[in-house]
């Protein structure tokens, strides 16, 4: 055979097949893990389904929303729920159900991404700081203490003074508040892990720091990271809602659950109940599901962190 007529040898064909089998079996493996999760923590699994449904609603908002969330018809301002508008209409005549559905997109996007970005940044910082120790760790610890002295909302407000409103500024502002907790938790995991014998052994054979961190320390941190982020996503969504209420969030007419509950709606002389109840319920259901899912995840991934049954 010349080099141009290469055909796969037996072993090559077998390894190709095993890779394909591996990839095809991933969904099945995931399904099995999920069924196991369902059996051990049914409440958490149900909540994860609710979270999934919320995400699907957000994703398919254009298909699900009965009306245009931005278009208003003045003659039908501030109507209570009825057959044409299931959640009623808001003060500008826009259908509330459509606004809640479309609002889920931005609220979920901002809530989830801000927490994940903040926790990720904090985790990487904590990981490196905990592993290296020394001067870098000392300075980082002081910085984190200073960072933690700012209440989350007030920190976000201060950042939004200079950044203005909008999706990205709000996400960045909320993510700043999540960094210190990520740093602290992951740093303690990293400190614990670097004392393990296998890390010592890896250092002895001359592995570079970066490789040790990625291969040995990182896996221990992943479960802590997952637990921390899912537990805080609810807080991120509430933070977005609070900023929207204060008028500092994403500016109208774009709908988020937060700015639908903005102060001019809530402080009206005779507030309409549907304007308050429905966006708020959306927030509560989503946050509740995320919190319970996060608790169940923590129970499954690291029972030592359990504070209660």
């Amino acid at each position, binding site marked *: 055979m010349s080099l141009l007529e290469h055909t796969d040898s037996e072993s090559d064909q077998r390894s190709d097949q095993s890779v394909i089998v591996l990839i095809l079996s991933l969904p099945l493996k995931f399904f099995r893990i999920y069924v196991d999760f369902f059996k051990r923590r049914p409440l958490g699994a149900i909540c994860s389904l609710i979270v999934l449904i919320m995400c699907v609603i957000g994703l398919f908002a254009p298909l699900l929303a009965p009306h245009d969330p931005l278009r208003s018809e003045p003659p039908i301002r501030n109507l209570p729920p009825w057959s044409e508008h299931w959640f009623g209409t808001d003060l500008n005549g826009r259908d509330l159900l459509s606004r809640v559905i479309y609002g889920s997109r931005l609220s979920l996007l901002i809530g989830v991404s801000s927490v994940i970005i903040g926790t990720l940044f904090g985790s990487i910082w904590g990981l490196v700081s905990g592993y290296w120790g020394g001067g870098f760790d000392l300075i980082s610890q002081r910085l984190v203490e200073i960072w933690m002295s700012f209440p989350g909302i*007030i920190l976000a407000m201060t950042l939004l003074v200079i950044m203005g409103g909008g999706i990205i500024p709000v996400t960045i502002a909320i993510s700043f508040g999540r960094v210190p907790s990520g740093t602290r938790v992951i740093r303690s995991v990293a400190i614990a892990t670097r004392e393990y014998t296998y890390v010592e052994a890896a250092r002895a054979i001359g592995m570079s720091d970066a490789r040790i961190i990625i291969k040995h320390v990182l896996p221990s941190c992943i479960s802590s990271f997952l637990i921390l982020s899912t537990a805080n996503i609810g807080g991120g969504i509430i933070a977005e*809602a609070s900023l929207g209420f204060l008028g500092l969030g994403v500016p109208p007419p774009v709908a988020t659950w937060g700015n639908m509950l903005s102060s001019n709606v*809530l402080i009206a002389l005779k507030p309409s109940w549907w304007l308050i109840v429905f966006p708020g319920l959306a927030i*509560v259901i989503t946050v509740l599901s995320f919190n319970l899912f996060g608790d169940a995840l923590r129970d499954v991934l690291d029972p030592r962190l359990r504070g209660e049954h």
Partner: protein
Amino acid sequence: MFKYAARRLLLAIPTILGASVVIFVVLRILPGDVLAAMFGEDEAMVKIDPAARQKFLEDLHLDKPLYAQYFLWLKDFGTGQLGESFWLKRPVFDIIKRKFPITLEIAVLSFVMAWIIGIPVGILSAMKQDTSWDYGGRVATIMFLATPNFWLGALLILFLVTFFAWVPPIIYKPLWEDPWTNLQMVFFPSLISATGQAAIIARLSRSSMLDVFREDYVRTAHAKGLTSSRVVRRHVLRNALIPVITLGFLTFGNALEGSVVLEVLFNLPGMGQTLLQAIFDKDFVIVQNFVLIYAGLFIIINLLVDLMYGWLDPRIRYG
């Protein structure tokens, strides 16, 4: 104990200074003139006469280099000469003096209410574990942790307006002038803030008590024949409540944070509402100083919690 306290105190000072540096840097890294940021790019949009502009320059020390501005600000903060707010047309220190008591009142009242509600719920939940009392308590806790406090407040106002045709008083009266009006205004926001904190405290005390129930000395006490209530009173409570008191005091920080939103909702002229308005007005003088006050309070709370921990749990002091 003294050494521990001194050490913690010494650590708190650079933290506060660090916080002030961060605030200063964040608010001054804006490109361009601070005054332009405050008043808009086109000065002609807002007519500031040269005398007012000069006064501003002096108050904020904008004619000096950046590091000098920072130290002069610290000195001003220490002496209380914080300059004047352009929009509110009064000295910043006066503004703080008027607004701070309201915020403090809400924070303290909500804190007290949270403990009165939270601890009994948590203890009851733990003692009657896995009964309907426990499940009810846990469900309530989880629900309150998932609701935004301003939404709860809005529902409360809606409820009061719809069913009782009652609105909180509009004109603010300080506590010593007109206690009844004052309490009417302050009670409901404090209640809402308290529910969130109480949820955290209840959760904490429940898990802490359950942990202590599992300890050997509790089992011994039961084995000796002591009644349940006696065991709880003499052995469980004092040990279980240590982490609750220490971590629970941190919820005072949550109270401060939540009060910003609740002040806006219930239209109370406290620091939070003023801060929000200052952010809309881009009133850097107020934002800078108010945020430093909030951060400083947070640091003091954390310091007190650490000291309390050291006092209550001797193992921390000598560790």
